[in-house]
């Protein structure tokens, strides 16, 4: 990175930290620290929930996901708009009416302490781990690009954001997210413009899309049906997106404290609802745009040689292993294919622009791309055979490698700052919510019930700090997880379904008591983990299975177990 890039990066990050500290002044009690005294307008709620959901993983992995797998990942968000309306009708008024700090407090009113504690524990477990991954995601950029030690990078990355999160609580989180989102959108827009700008002369935006489309990367809508019928193992298709995605988004926004904690800060129920409903409308187009950048990068690399493997650190490790010669041969072959690809893609564009038959060049282009993909797979195989430690998938490196290799000075720093800010937005909200759950659902419930407001405030800050340290430690172990965006979503899907099931029973099945729902939740959670472990079912389905499983089993248990035993 050039000096200019370092200056842009340092100025952007310092400004955010300073702004977060400036906005840290709030009343020194739980209401001020966790709920900003319920004073936020709808646009801050909207930006805050968007900033919480769109982590660095979103901006790192999504373009890479589009590069390798096409745009079908956008279907994952199809359940979101409907989930937002249902959420506004059911969850939001209830949480506002009861004036809760955490979503799980409601479950004690409705069922019992153990059900509240179970759901709170499941949240803390999955959110604590996924926050660690969210720290690791931007840390790999620095370590890969600058050759920094990944462990020290994790500490540096997590440490800076803890400063304003611990200091200012929910208010600092919301205000910095607003600022962060503006910089992120500007940065991504500039990146998209630059990809098109860097295409060869005469090749424009539409031409780039044509190239990506012909090579199957613009597969936005997929049915999940193959010649053997519906493929349940297919992760992203319209049905898993609408049904599985609906359950996942409903549980994420309705039962995950990192989101509930954002819209509970609204000054009224209407402000919460507007923020959530608008989020439902803008999220799919936003995600589509981010994925589109990935397909443009893919088109760019048809005209320019792409690295054999985007994680150069991994390539260097393999070249020093016993498989160094195999790698050299592979690279020679790959360079030959890349030269051939460049000729064929130019011929294809010329044929297409002059309305000539493109079938031959198109078939050649597809064939060359298949061969280069095979070589990439071979590289992964030899890096595994060589026993080289590190990430064997390069999805997360694709976009940033392009940025570092091709964007002009200054913009590289800005784009790296964008990744940092995106990470900080979601991590800060997560730390705040982890602390609120620990304080309200665990500490004040089981450890020290009656404390002064000042002590509660101080305890909350300490828990925010402790969760920050825990997340950094988790980040140290987050290697070998493949696509990080998938890792975070898979982790959520293991727990969200069950938590949502408990809430659905609470809302809609008034005759079911605490014991029945608690036993159901424990049994179904074990089943979900076994199902994920032992089968290859698409992870989005786990949300629907978990939620419906808890509802059905709770109904059965309530019916078969004598009322005396299940009554609370």
């Amino acid at each position, binding site marked *: 990175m050039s000096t200019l890039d370092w200056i842009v990066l340092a100025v952007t990050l310092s400004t955010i930290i300073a702004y977060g500290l400036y906005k840290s002044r709030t009343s020194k009690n739980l209401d001020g620290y966790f709920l900003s005294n319920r004073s936020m307008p709808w646009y801050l709620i909207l930006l805050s929930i968007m900033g919480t959901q769109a982590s660095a993983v979103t901006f790192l992995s999504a373009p890479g996901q589009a590069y390798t797998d096409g745009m079908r990942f*956008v279907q994952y968000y*199809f359940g979101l*708009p*409907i989930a*937002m*309306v249902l959420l*506004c*009708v059911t969850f939001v*008024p209830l949480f*506002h*009416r009861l004036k809760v700090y955490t979503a799980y407090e409601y479950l004690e009113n409705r069922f019992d302490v153990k059900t509240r504690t179970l759901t709170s524990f499941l949240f803390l477990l999955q959110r604590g781990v996924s926050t660690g991954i969210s720290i690791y995601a931007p840390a790999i950029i620095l370590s890969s690009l600058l050759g920094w030690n990944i462990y020290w990078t994790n500490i540096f990355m997590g440490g800076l954001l803890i400063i304003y999160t611990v200091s200012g609580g929910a208010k600092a989180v919301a205000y910095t997210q607003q600022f962060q989102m503006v910089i992120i959108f500007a940065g991504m827009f500039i990146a998209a413009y630059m990809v098109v700008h860097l295409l060869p002369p005469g090749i424009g935006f539409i031409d780039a*899309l*044509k190239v*990506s*489309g*012909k090579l*199957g990367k*613009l*597969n*936005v*809508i997929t049915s999940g049906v193959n010649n053997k019928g519906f493929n349940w193992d297919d992760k992203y298709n*319209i049905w898993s997106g*609408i049904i599985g995605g609906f359950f996942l988004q409903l549980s994420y926004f309705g039962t995950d404290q990192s989101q509930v904690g954002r819209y509970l800060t609204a000054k*009224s*129920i*209407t402000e919460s*609802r*507007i923020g959530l*409903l608008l989020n*439902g*409308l803008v999220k*799919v*187009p936003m995600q*589509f745009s981010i994925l589109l950048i990935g397909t443009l990068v893919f088109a760019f690399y048809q005209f320019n040689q792409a690295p054999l493997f985007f994680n150069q650190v991994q390539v260097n490790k393999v070249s020093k292993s016993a498989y160094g010669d195999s790698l050299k041969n592979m690279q020679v072959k790959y360079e030959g294919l890349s030269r051939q690809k460049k000729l064929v893609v130019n011929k294809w564009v010329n044929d297409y622009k002059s309305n000539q038959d493109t079938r031959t060049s198109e078939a050649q282009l597809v064939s060359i791309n298949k061969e280069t993909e095979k070589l990439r797979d071979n590289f992964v195989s030899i890096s595994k055979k060589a026993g080289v430690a590190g990430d064997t998938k390069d999805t997360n490196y694709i976009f940033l490698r392009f940025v570092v290799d091709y964007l002009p000075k200054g913009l590289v720093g800005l784009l790296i700052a964008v990744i940092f800010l995106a990470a900080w937005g979601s991590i800060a909200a997560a730390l705040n919510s982890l602390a609120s759950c620990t304080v309200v659902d665990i500490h004040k419930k089981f450890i020290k019930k009656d404390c002064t407001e000042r002590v509660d405030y101080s305890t909350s800050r300490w828990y925010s700090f402790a969760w920050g340290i825990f997340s950094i430690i988790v980040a140290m172990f987050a290697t070998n997880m493949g696509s990080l965006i998938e890792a975070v979503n898979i982790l959520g899907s293991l727990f969200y379904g069950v938590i949502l099931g408990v809430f659905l029973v609470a809302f809609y099945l008034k005759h079911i008591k605490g014991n029945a729902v608690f036993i159901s939740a424990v049994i179904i959670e074990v089943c979900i983990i076994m199902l994920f472990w032992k089968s290859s079912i698409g992870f989005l389905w786990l949300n629907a299975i978990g939620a419906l499983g808890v509802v059905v089993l709770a109904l059965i248990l309530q019916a078969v177990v004598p009322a005396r035993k299940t009554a609370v």
Partner: protein
Amino acid sequence: MKKMQEEKPPLLGSWKTWYVMVIAFLVVLIILFKMFTNYFA
């Protein structure tokens, strides 16, 4: 009064209208995406 505020949706007249609106929005998006895929394939 508070109950009324809880039941009243923002911006549109009823929650039923909101459901219809988001489903229609989703259908339009899916059609546009399908056309986008087909056009560039």
